[in-house]
Structures are given as structure tokens and as C-alpha cells.
């Protein structure tokens, strides 16, 4: 058995890439018929129903990390690792009431940055914008790189080609279809992912029953079953807060809140949390079962695909390829759309085209999507290894936005000064903690500092915000 053989042949890989690439683009163009207006393009006409609303939240939160990192987490940190990973669903649960409030408070809103600007003023807007763009771009880059690396590992497709192909497909169908295409493809992608991992998990159980897996772990990797596993215990809430920070601040989730039909948002996010919850559990199980099946794990991050291919042969390889491609596409398209919305509405429009009408802004949005895609591609191309770790710097940054956001949405007295201080102090001190103590403290400390700052500033110098400021109808200027 040659050790550098890939799970799939190169020709199969290219075929699958082409097949699904064409399919997503075709759907993008089809759904793009409705994406002519700005509201259609950016927020899918504000009329997305429960099924699609739920599916898009699920699919977007399933990234290549969920399918690749969860098995690795399980292999490194055991059962606690699985539980810790699953807590990322809490971000979705907690966002549910926020989604309702957001739609209620900003019926004509487009982005999270807009909210911060209206709620807290220019200074907060600037800080929040930097955090949002940093997070959005590093997430996109990490997905792009992951795509290239995975396609190469699975099918031998050269990194540069695979990465470019994935980004190109996502840019094209997002360009044509806007949020309609993003959400529509998300639905299909989430079904494929769910079906895929259930098939692989059931197949594993037929080969390695749970008692056997448990016994094997107990004998050879006992710490993985340990309740008192220090590394895992300290990571739990750090990761949880990172996840909550990601969801609460990112326009990826806010744009969906704006897009969903009234009354749908809260239910959609609650269900999405529930549906997402088992995915890292099942994916993690793949990682834990690997030793029992007799697979030698050379690198922990490829254990997922390795197990699937081992159990199901080339069919397993095809399944993994498709699932990974879907999880990547479903996240990249969302990021493209959400980041472009922010750049278009919150940078270009106010500073360069203040009097532009919706049709013109719609065209600008298209241009921005292409530009953002190009920038991402440019950063992915050199395949700098340490880039993926840069994403972890985002932990304290996004953690520091949690309290400014929830206080901003619900607490009239929360004020701009507090928000700015909270984000800056939280980010700075969190980053210091990252380097001085360890990554497992960064989000925790960033959130804690931000929390204390918000509470103190709100109590010491309470504001008196008029909620109606958020509901301002945008001036509609027909170009």
C-alpha cells in the first residue's frame, strides 16, 4: 500500500469539481433572476422562509473545519474534544432572539456594521469595521487554502488549481445570484453534508461496533476518555466564546436575519443550532474510530477522509470530496456576499457615492465581490502555512464585540464610548493573553475585559438611545 496514494484519482477529482462547479453556477444564474434589485441581491428580498432560513444557517456554520477539524479534535482531545466542538452551536441558539430583535429594530437594515454605526457612532464604527474585515478576510483565506490543500490531499489536484477553482465557482454564482444563490445552494449543500456523514458513520459502526471502539480507546488512548482532561477542559469555554463572538458580530449572520421573513428568524436559528449540533459529534466519531479500524494516522487533520475512504472505498472518497467541497462552498459564498455588502454599503457608498441610487449600488456590489475574491485568491496563492493560525488572533477580537452588540441591541443606556473602549481593550488584552499565556485564554480574556468595560461604562455614564434611530428608512434615490 503506497503511502502517498490519494483517496481518489486525479481524473475523478477534476470530474467532480467540474460537475458540481457547473451545477452551482447554473443555479446561481437561475436564481439570479430575482437578484436584480439591491434588496434582492443583498438580503434576498427580505422574504426567506423557514426551511431555507434554517438550512442556510446550518450550512454556513458547517465549514471545512467542521468536517476536517472535528475528527482531529476528537483524536487529540477525545470525548471532551467532541463536546467542546459542539458548543459552537450555542452561538446559533443565542443568536435566535438577536435575529428577531435585529429585524424588528432595523427593518431596512443591511449590515451589522450599519447597526454599530447608527447605535454607537463613528468611532465604534471604525473599530468594528476593522474587526469585521479582519475576521471576514482571514476566514475566507483559511477556507480558500483549506480547499486547495484538501483537493490536493484527496485527489492530487494541484493546490493552485484547486484553490482557484473553488474560489472562482463561488465568486461566479454569488455574483449572479446574490444572497438568493447563496441561500439556495446552502440548502442543497446542507442536505448533502448531512446525508454524507450519516452514511459514513453508519458504515463505520458496521465495521467497528461502539463497544469495540470504546475498548480500543481505553486500552491504547485512555486519556481520550478522561473526564479530567486538562487541555480539553480549558479549551471548552474559550472555544465557545470564540464561536459566539463569530456569530454575534459577523454580517454573515446579520444579513440572514435581515433576509428572513418576519417571524422566521428566531425559529430558524434555534432549529439551525439543533441541526448543527450533531455534526461535529458524528464527524468526531470518525476520528475516534480510526484506530479501532486499524488505520495508521499519519496526520491528524486527514483522519476524516482517511476513515471514509477506508470504510467505503472509492465511494467513500467521492463522498468525502463532495461533502468537503459543499462545506467549503457554503461558507465561502456567504463570506463573499456578507463582506462585500459591508464594503459596498459601509465604505464605498458613504465615502465615494453618497448620492448613488440602489441600481448603481447594486452594480458596485458586484464589482466588490470580484475584488474581494481576487484579494482572497492573491493571499491564498503563496500558501503561507502560518496564515491559518492568524484566524485564531480573531478570537479575542470577535469576543470583544459580544457585549457591545448585545448591550447595544437591548440596553438603552449602553453608549458609544463604552463600546469603543470595550472592543479596543478586549482585543488588545486578549491578544496579549494569547501570546503570553496561551491560545486557550485569548477569547475568554477578550470577552471578559469587554464585558467589564461595557458594564462599568454603562453604569457610570449611561446613555439614552432612541431606538427609532435604527429604523430610519433609507432615502431611496432612483438613479
Amino acid at each position, binding site marked *: 500500500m503506497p503511502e502517498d496514494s490519494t483517496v481518489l484519482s486525479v481524473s475523478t477529482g477534476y470530474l467532480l469539481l467540474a460537475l458540481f462547479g457547473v451545477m452551482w453556477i447554473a443555479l446561481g444564474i437561475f436564481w439570479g433572476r430575482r437578484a436584480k434589485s439591491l434588496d434582492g441581491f443583498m438580503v434576498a428580498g427580505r422574504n426567506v*422562509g423557514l426551511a431555507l432560513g434554517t438550512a442556510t444557517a446550518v450550512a454556513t456554520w458547517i465549514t471545512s473545519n467542521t468536517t476536517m477539524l472535528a475528527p482531529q479534535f476528537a483524536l487529540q482531545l477525545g470525548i471532551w474534544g467532541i463536546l467542546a466542538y459542539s458548543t459552537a452551536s450555542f452561538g446559533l441558539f443565542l443568536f435566535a432572539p438577536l435575529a428577531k430583535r435585529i429585524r424588528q429594530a432595523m427593518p431596512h437594515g443591511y449590515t451589522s456594521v450599519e447597526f454599530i454605526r447608527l447605535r454607537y457612532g463613528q468611532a465604534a464604527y471604525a473599530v468594528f469595521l476593522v474587526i469585521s474585515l479582519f475576521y471576514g478576510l482571514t476566514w475566507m483565506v483559511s477556507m480558500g487554502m483549506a480547499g486547495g490543500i484538501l483537493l490536493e490531499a484527496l485527489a492530487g489536484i494541484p493546490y493552485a488549481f484547486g484553490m482557484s477553482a473553488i474560489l472562482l465557482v463561488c465568486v461566479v454564482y454569488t455574483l449572479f445570484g446574490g444572497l438568493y444563490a447563496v441561500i439556495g445552494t446552502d440548502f442543497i449543500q446542507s442536505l448533502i453534508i448531512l446525508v454524507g456523514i450519516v452514511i459514513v458513520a453508519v458504515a463505520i459502526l458496521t465495521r467497528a461496533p*461502539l463497544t469495540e471502539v470504546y475498548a480500543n480507546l481505553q486500552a491504547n488512548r485512555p486519556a481520550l476518555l478522561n473526564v479530567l482532561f486538562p487541555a480539553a477542559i480549558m479549551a471548552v469555554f474559550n472555544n465557545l466564546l470564540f464561536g459566539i463572538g463569530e456569530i454575534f458580530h459577523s454580517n454573515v449572520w446579520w444579513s440572514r436575519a435581515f433576509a428572513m421573513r418576519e417571524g422566521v428568524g428566531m425559529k430558524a436559528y434555534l432549529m439551525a443550532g439543533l441541526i448543527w449540533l450533531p455534526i461535529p*459529534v458524528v464527524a468526531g466519531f470518525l476520528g475516534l474510530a480510526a484506530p479501532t479500524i486499524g488505520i495508521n494516522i499519519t496526520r491528524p487533520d486527514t483522519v476524516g477522509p482517511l476513515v471514509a475512504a477506508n470504510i467505503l472505498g472509492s465511494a467513500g472518497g467521492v463522498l468525502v470530496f463532495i461533502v468537503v467541497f459543499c462545506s467549503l462552498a457554503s461558507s465561502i459564498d456567504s463570506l463573499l456576499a456578507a463582506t462585500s455588502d459591508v464594503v459596498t454599503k459601509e465604505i464605498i457608498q458613504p465615502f465615494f457615492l453618497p448620492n448613488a441610487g440602489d441600481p448603481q449600488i447594486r452594480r458596485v456590489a458586484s464589482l466588490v465581490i470580484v475584488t474581494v475574491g481576487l484579494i482572497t485568491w492573491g493571499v491564498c496563492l503563496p500558501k503561507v502555512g502560518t496564515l491559518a493560525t492568524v484566524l485564531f488572533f480573531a478570537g479575542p477580537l470577535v469576543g470583544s464585540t459580544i457585549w457591545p452588540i448585545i448591550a447595544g441591541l437591548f440596553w438603552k443606556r449602553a453608549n458609544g464610548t463604552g463600546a469603543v473602549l470595550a472592543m479596543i481593550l478586549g482585543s488588545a488584552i486578549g491578544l496579549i493573553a494569547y501570546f503570553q499565556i496561551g491560545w486557550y485564554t485569548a477569547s475568554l480574556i477578550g470577552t471578559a475585559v469587554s464585558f467589564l468595560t461595557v458594564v462599568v461604562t454603562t453604569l457610570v455614564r449611561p446613555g439614552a438611545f432612541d431606538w427609532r434611530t435604527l429604523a430610519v428608512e433609507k432615502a431611496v434615490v432612483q438613479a
Partner: protein
Amino acid sequence: MILFPEWFFTVLVYGGITLAAVSGVLLLVLLIRDVGGKTLW
């Protein structure tokens, strides 16, 4: 070292697989309801 008991592991994995399978069905049902009842978009 205190180990997670085997039954916990069993419930976790089987529960996860079942929930994932049910979710897939749920999404399809919701879609049919959305399309059947009101406009999709």
C-alpha cells in the same frame, strides 16, 4: 482519571447520528411546506 462511561459514549454517538438523519428529513419537510404553502422566495 475518571473515564466517560461507555453508555455516555453510546448515547452521544447514536444520538448524534439519529439527530443528523432526522434533521435531513426535517429540512426536506420544511421545504415542501414552504414551497407548497407559500412562495419560496
